[in-house]
């Protein structure tokens, strides 16, 4: 029989072991992501086990874009991948967040697609345009109209859910739709002869895609988030290398549940940013589209002007460039 002393010692050892393993095995970082090439790319790191190699436990959770923001808003995940504009919308809705990583900017995947015969935004004067009001492509459209010397009052906006844009354009009840891939490409296919009259490639930096983290998780697990950020560079490198690019795209396509050839088409419209490039745009303090800060300020004005939320946001508090900088040094 075990003496009471040995028993106590064993119990203590077991207890110590249990608590120590508890601290070592912290809960995984829960990250919600959805079908946008700049985010789907994280599936590569998940598939290859790169997070584990980097010493951080990450649980990637696959969502539709809307529900991913809902889950973050409900505090069910630690981070969510959103555009810089939607990070503000999410924050204004009560789910404060901090953008710690820029994955890419939209470089053509967001488009205004017009019916055949319409060759520029100017031709859309007095016509109907289907767009999801208050979302990024509404901003894209307004930006384009402004550049063409027009304003929102020169066209008639028809509220259209992004994923229905192809059908709406095909019905010819509108003259153009504004949507992002894969919906914009589907609209082009659905109406032969239709044309992208304005795209995010015309205004690089209008839409940045980011990883937004809850302030609490960032405060408690900062070191882990730096490791997470660092893995991004490995993903970009994997997709940049001609030898491994196809394998990377294959994994992304599998995550999205479609044919790799179909998915490869979207890569050109997404300008992936290396850690060095991303760190620069995240840290820069400009008022234009060449920094996340400038782009977000413009998005903030747009959001308030369109009643997406009432109070202007403190945009600076949404950006923390220090993690990217630290990951670069390591």
């Amino acid at each position: 029989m075990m003496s009471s002393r040995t028993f106590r010692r064993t119990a203590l050892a077991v207890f110590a072991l249990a608590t120590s393993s508890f601290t070592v095995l912290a809960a995984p970082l829960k990250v919600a992501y959805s079908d946008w090439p700049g985010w789907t790319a994280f599936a590569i790191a998940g598939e290859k086990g790169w997070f584990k190699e980097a010493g951080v436990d990450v649980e990637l959770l696959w969502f539709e874009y809307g529900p991913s923001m809902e889950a973050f808003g409900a505090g069910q995940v630690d981070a969510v991948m959103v555009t810089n504009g939607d990070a503000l919308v999410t924050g204004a809705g009560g789910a404060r967040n901090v953008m710690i990583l820029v994955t890419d900017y939209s470089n053509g995947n967001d488009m205004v697609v017009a019916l055949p015969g319409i060759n520029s935004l100017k031709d859309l004067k007095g016509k109907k345009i289907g767009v999801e009001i208050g979302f990024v492509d509404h901003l894209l459209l307004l930006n384009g109209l402004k550049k063409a010397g027009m304003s929102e009052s020169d066209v008639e906006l028809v509220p259209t859910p992004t994923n229905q844009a192809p059908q709406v354009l095909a019905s010819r009840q509108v003259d153009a739709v504004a949507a992002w891939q894969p919906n914009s490409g589907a609209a082009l296919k659905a109406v032969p002869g239709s044309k992208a009259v304005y795209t995010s490639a015309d205004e690089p930096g209008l839409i940045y895609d980011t990883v937004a983290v809850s302030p609490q998780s960032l405060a408690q697990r900062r070191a882990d988030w730096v490791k997470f950020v660092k893995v991004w560079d490995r993903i970009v490198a994997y997709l940049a290398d001609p030898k491994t690019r196809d394998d990377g795209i294959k994994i992304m396509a599998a995550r999205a549940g479609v044919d790799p050839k179909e998915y490869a088409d979207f890569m050109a419209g997404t300008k992936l940013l290396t850690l060095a490039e991303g760190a620069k745009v995240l840290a820069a303090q400009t008022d234009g589209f060449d920094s996340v800060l400038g782009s977000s300020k413009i998005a903030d004005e747009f959001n308030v002007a369109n009643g997406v939320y009432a109070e202007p946001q403190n945009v600076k508090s949404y950006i923390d460039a220090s993690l990217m900088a630290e990951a670069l040094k390591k």
Partner: protein
Amino acid sequence: MPRRPWFAVLQPLSSRRRTLLGVSSFLIPLVVWSAVSYLPFLWKPLVRVSDPGDVSWFQAGMLVDRHAFAQEVERVEAEEGRVPAGRRANPIYLPAPHEVARALYTAFTTKPVLRGDKWLHESLATSIKTIFYGFTISSLLGVPLGILCGAYAAAARLTEPVVDFIRYMPAPAFGALMVAILGIHLEPKVAIIVIGTFFQQVLVVANTVRRVEPSLLEAAQTLGAKRRHLLLRVIVPASLPDLYNDLRILLGWAWTYLIVAEVVGVSSGITFFINQQAKYRNFDNVYAAIVIIGVIGLATDQVLGFFGQRIFAWRSLRPSRFRTLVNRFFSDRYLVLFPDKPETATTRP
């Protein structure tokens, strides 16, 4: 002997005719679909470009409006360029039967590329699990409550007004709320199905219970049945066959809510497949998935119908060995189920 007419009011059909008509009800839509798909002169409003010729905006494989195609051909001919070629085709949202059949086959046989990802049949299993939990929870709460409401006016008055009110709130509206309360995995999905089913269930069950023959109740009361006896020995057994059928119909409701439930939280199950394929306009896959759901629904309902006919055999005319089995099983356990033992002879002092 004169032939029996096909359309005789309220007359049952012979079993051969029943089979024939049942098969036809599936064949007719299939034949129409095939005709529209394969007969070149029926409909076909588009042209699938096989060779773009000298038309700048044509691409091989592109679907073009028939008139636009004709115009371009005329224009190129006038300019003496290379004439584009193509075949008449249907819109992308109407794939041919064989394409859907092929999609059905490939969907099941395609190996998941990613580690930990699911085969289609595994996704389906997830969906079925979601439905099962949702419907079971809903029924465990809804059926007893419905029976109480049906039997007791007081219970009905206390429950039905608010149930009636909530019933009009669309279950999808609770999505974000359920995620906030229950997390992102299976639980909020199950909750959406429960919300979508439960409130209807209470009202449907209560209504069925109210339709119990009053004469049965009177007879039971004459024989001295008290309140609890009336409920457990008369009302419940009398309405069971109808309740069973109610549940079969309500199970269909549960399936309807699946598509909403599965986009709540983490994408999962058959809905993920449908949404993703629709986004990329792979409509053959979308049809395949819809067919799968239809087949599962129909099969479940047929199985339930089969058992129902045997469990409640007094409603059908066929004798059944299964029913005998069930009866024998329960006849021994009758006292266990209803332990107030009226059968036990009491000795008089």
